[in-house]
């Protein structure tokens, strides 16, 4: 959508390249190591800020990238299977404290959802870090029903 708009507005082709690898970090590294000529632009979530604190990154986002604009805001929501029987965050935290080892799913290690999950775990006083990391490596669509 952004690429199409820019192409029309500026009369030049904007090519969107979906880059996978290392949970999306390969794309960040590719842009960080590209020629600083304004023709290779990173469009990402705030994983560019959170991931280096969890995973090894081949570039330093602070020195190798320059922020230009914030395009949008992305909320992080907490969703559970209806059969879990919780209807509020307080009820969920109470259940998490009563059931150590609960897992959750995100779309990747080191992204903002993962960081939010770790923060929530700290609030809950849970101590199931390893299982949470393992769950985060699985696609949410397959791991969520198994909560």
């Amino acid at each position, binding site marked *: 959508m952004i690429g199409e708009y820019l192409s029309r507005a500026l009369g*030049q082709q*904007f090519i969107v390249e979906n880059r996978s690898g290392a949970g999306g970090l390969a794309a960040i590294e590719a842009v960080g190591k590209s020629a600083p000529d304004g023709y290779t632009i*990173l469009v990402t979530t705030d994983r560019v800020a959170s991931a280096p604190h969890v995973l090894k990154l081949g570039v330093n986002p602070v020195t190798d990238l320059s922020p230009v604009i914030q395009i949008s805001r992305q909320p992080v929501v907490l969703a559970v299977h209806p059969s879990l029987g919780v209807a509020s965050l307080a009820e969920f935290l109470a259940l998490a404290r009563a059931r150590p080892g609960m897992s959750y799913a995100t779309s990747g290690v080191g992204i903002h959802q993962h960081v939010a999950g770790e923060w929530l775990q700290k609030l809950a006083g849970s101590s199931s870090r390893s299982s949470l990391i393992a769950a985060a490596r699985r696609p949410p669509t397959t791991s969520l029903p198994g909560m």
Partner: protein
Amino acid sequence: MAMLRFLGGLLALISLQPVASSAETWPSRPVRLIVPVVAGARPTPRRA
């Protein structure tokens, strides 16, 4: 409000100035927008 922020962001993006010290008008050639994706992720199917 979210749409206004989005449009504001687009306007800021199209006002980018050339990064290199060159007299050429940006962009004079195709620009690559690199988007990180997580392997295995797929669009959520729409419900009927």
